[in-house]
C-alpha cells in the first residue's frame, strides 16, 4: 500500500497518545486566545506589526549582522560564525578544548538539536547534559522532542517514571511532583560540576547587543550562575532592531507559547558577569549559525525566518493534533516544520516533500502566528517547487486526463453522464496506487454527475 510517510506514522500512533496530544494542544490554544483577548483590545495588531518588524530584519540582515557583531564585541563577547552544522559543532568543541573543559550543561536550544551537538560532543569525550526537564527526559531515553515548546508532550508519566527508575534516579514513582523533585536534586549537582553553560537565544537586540533568553524552570539561569563560561548558539535570524521591540515580542511570545503573560525567567544578557558578581561566566561566546538559513533567505519562502519558535501553530493544527510531532521526522514539527524542515533539508528535500502536502491549507496556523507568517502560501510554493523538481510523490495522481476533460466542454458533459458507471465498479480494485491509498481511509460518495446542470437548466426565476 502506498501512503505518505507522515500518514503511515499517524496511522500507527497509539490512540492514547493521539488523545493526549489532541487534548493538551487544544487546551493551550484556547488559553492562548483567551489571554490575548483579555489583555489587549486588538491583539491582531500586535502580531501584524511584529511580523513586519521580523520581515524587515530578515530583509536587512546584511546590515544587522555586522552591527550586532560589533555591539557584542564592544561588551567583551567573543563572536564566532558557523556556516554549517559541522562548523558550529567544531566551534563549540574548540571553545571547550581551549578551556580544558569536559562538562557542559545545556539549556533548551533548537539550534543545538539541528546541529546534533550532543552526540558530536559525546564522541569527543564531552558530557553535554540537557537541563530542561522535558529535554533531560528526551536525552535519557535517546528520544527526540515532539513539540517545540513541550518536548515530551508524547510521553506519559508512567513512561517517565520507568525511565527514572532505569537511570537510578529512584524507585518507580509516577507522581509529577516527585519526578520533578528528583530531577532537581540530580541536576543541581551537574550544574555545579560543569565547566560551560550553553544556551540558545530567543532574541538579540541590535540596538544594545543584548541576548534575551526565556525559560520557566530557571535552568538557563542556573547554567549561567554555576559555570564560568557561556556559549550562546544563535540562528542568524534572531535579531530585533530596537530594545523597544523586545517588549512587543515578549508580550506575544509567552502568550502564544503557553498562554502565560510572561515566562518565569526572562534574561537580558549583554556580556560576561559584572565584576562585583561572584557567580557566573567570566567569558561569553556567541556563535552565529547559518546551517541552511541563507538558502531559505534566497528562496521565495524566506518569510518563515520570522519564526520565534512559540509552537502556537502546532497547537492549533489539525494535522499536528492527529499525527503528533515525530511524524514530521524533523527537528521542527507542525506547520512551521512543514515549511522549514524541507527547506533546511537541502539535498534531502525529496525526503520531506510529504510534509508540505500534509495540510488542508485551513489557515489556522497563519491566524495564530505571532509574527503573521503566511504558512499556507509557503506550503503552496513548496508544493510547486516539489512538482517542478519532480520530487517523487505518491499522494497526487497524474492530472493529464483531468486537464483534457476540463478543457473540452463536450467531453466534460459526456464524462458527467458516463461517470455513473463508477457507482457499479469495484473501485478498490483499480490498479492505480494513488486511488487505492485514497480509498483506504475514505469512501467516495455516489456519483451524481450532471444533476446540478439539470436543476439549473429547469430553474425559473
Amino acid at each position, binding site marked *: 500500500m502506498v501512503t505518505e510517510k507522515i500518514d503511515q506514522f499517524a496511522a500507527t500512533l497509539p490512540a492514547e497518545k493521539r488523545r493526549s496530544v489532541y487534548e493538551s494542544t487544544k*487546551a493551550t490554544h484556547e488559553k492562548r486566545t483567551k489571554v490575548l483577548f*483579555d*489583555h489587549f*483590545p486588538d491583539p491582531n495588531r*500586535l502580531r501584524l*506589526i511584529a511580523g*513586519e518588524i521580523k*520581515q*524587515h530584519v530578515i530583509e*536587512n*540582515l*546584511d546590515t544587522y*549582522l*555586522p552591527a550586532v557583531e560589533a555591539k557584542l564585541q564592544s561588551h567583551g563577547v567573543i563572536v564566532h*560564525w*558557523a556556516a554549517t552544522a559541522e*562548523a558550529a559543532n567544531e566551534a563549540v568543541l574548540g571553545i571547550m578544548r581551549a578551556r580544558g573543559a569536559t562538562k557542559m550543561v545545556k539549556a533548551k536550544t533548537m539550534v543545538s538539536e539541528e546541529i546534533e551537538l550532543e552526540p558530536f560532543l559525546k564522541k569527543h569525550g564531552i558530557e553535554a547534559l540537557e537541563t530542561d526537564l522535558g529535554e533531560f527526559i528526551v536525552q535519557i531515553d535517546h528520544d527526540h522532542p515532539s513539540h517545540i515548546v*513541550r518536548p*515530551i*508532550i508524547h510521553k*506519559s508519566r508512567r513512561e*517517565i517514571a520507568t525511565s527514572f527508575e532505569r537511570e537510578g534516579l529512584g524507585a518507580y514513582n509516577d507522581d*509529577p511532583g516527585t519526578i*520533578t523533585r528528583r530531577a*532537581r536534586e540530580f541536576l*543541581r549537582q551537574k*550544574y*555545579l560540576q560543569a565547566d560551560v553553560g550553553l544556551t540558545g537565544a530567543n532574541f538579540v537586540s541590535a540596538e*544594545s547587543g*543584548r541576548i534575551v533568553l526565556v525559560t520557566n*524552570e*530557571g535552568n538557563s*539561569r*542556573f547554567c*549561567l*550562575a554555576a559555570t564560568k563560561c557561556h556559549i550562546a548558539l544563535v540562528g542568524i535570524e534572531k535579531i530585533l532592531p530596537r*530594545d*523597544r521591540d523586545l*517588549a*512587543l515580542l*515578549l508580550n506575544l511570545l509567552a502568550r502564544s507559547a503557553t498562554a502565560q*503573560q*510572561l*515566562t*518565569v*525567567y*526572562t*534574561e537580558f544578557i*549583554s556580556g*560576561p558577569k*559584572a565584576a*562585583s*558578581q*561572584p*557567580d*557566573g561566566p567570566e567569558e561569553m561566546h556567541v556563535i552565529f549559525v*547559518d546551517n541552511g538559513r*541563507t*538558502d531559505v*533567505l534566497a528562496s521565495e519562502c524566506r518569510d518563515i525566518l520570522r519564526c520565534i519558535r512559540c509552537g502556537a501553530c502546532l497547537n492549533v493544527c489539525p494535522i499536528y493534533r492527529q499525527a503528533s510531532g515525530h511524524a514530521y521526522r524533523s527537528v521542527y514539527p507542525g506547520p512551521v516544520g512543514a515549511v522549514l524542515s524541507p527547506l533546511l533539508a537541502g539535498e534531502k528535500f525529496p525526503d520531506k516533500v510529504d510534509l508540505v502536502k500534509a495540510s488542508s491549507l485551513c489557515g489556522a496556523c497563519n491566524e495564530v502566528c505571532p509574527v503573521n507568517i503566511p504558512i499556507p502560501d509557503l506550503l503552496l510554493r513548496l508544493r510547486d517547487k516539489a512538482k517542478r523538481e519532480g520530487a517523487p510523490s505518491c499522494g497526487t495522481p497524474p492530472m493529464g486526463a483531468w486537464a483534457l476533460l476540463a478543457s473540452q466542454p463536450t467531453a466534460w458533459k459526456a464524462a458527467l453522464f458516463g461517470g455513473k458507471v463508477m457507482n457499479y465498479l469495484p473501485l478498490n480494485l483499480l490498479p492505480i496506487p494513488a486511488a487505492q491509498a485514497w480509498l483506504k481511509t475514505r469512501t467516495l460518495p455516489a456519483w451524481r454527475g450532471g444533476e446540478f446542470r439539470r436543476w439549473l437548466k429547469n430553474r425559473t426565476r
Partner: protein
Amino acid sequence: MTADREQILSRVRAALAPLPVRAALPDYDAELTVARKLLGDRDLLTVFAERIKLVNGLLLTDVAALVGHLRAGGWMRGYCDPLLWPQLATHFGPEFTVETVFDRTRVDHFAFSITRAVGAIAETGTIILNDRTTASRLGALTPWVHVTVLDRAAIYPDLGHAIAALGDDPNVIWVTGPSKTADVEGILIEGVHGPGQQIALVV
C-alpha cells in the same frame, strides 16, 4: 571562522540582492504593548500585588511577616545579602542561622535567601534583578524560598518601561513567580531548578 563569516555575509548579500525593495521598519505607539486592561488607572503597587498573586508569588510588606512566614514553613537556614543583613538581623530570632557568604559547596544547606531587587513590573507581577545589586546569582536561585527586597518607588507599569530602564548592567533578569514546569502531562509543578517560593518584600 573568518572564512565562515565572509561566507555567511556574502550569501546573505546574494540572497537579498534580487529584492526590488526591502521591507521597512514599522513604527508604533508605545501604548500598543501595554496590557492597559490590567493596569486601569490603579496605583502600581495595587496592580503589582494582584498580578504577583496570580503567578503564585507572594508579596509581604513588613519584615515581621516575613520572619513569621519562614518560621511557619520551617525554613530556618538562610543566606542574606551582606548589605541587607545589618537592617534585618534584629528581626530574626536566635533559632535562625543566616550566613552572608553563599557557599556553593553547600547549596542545599540554605532553605531561604534574601537579596535585593532593582525594580518590579506591575502588569506582570515581575521582580527585576540585575548583576550589580544581586549579591550572588546562586544565592538568589538555589534555595527553596527566595526573598527580594524591593523599593515600592521602583515599580514600572509595563514591559516597555522596564525595558527602557535596563541600563548598562550585563545581566538583568525578570522573575515572574516561582520556577515552574508543565512538562509532565501538562501538570503544573513549582520549584524545578529555582525557588518554589518567590517573595517580594516591599519596603
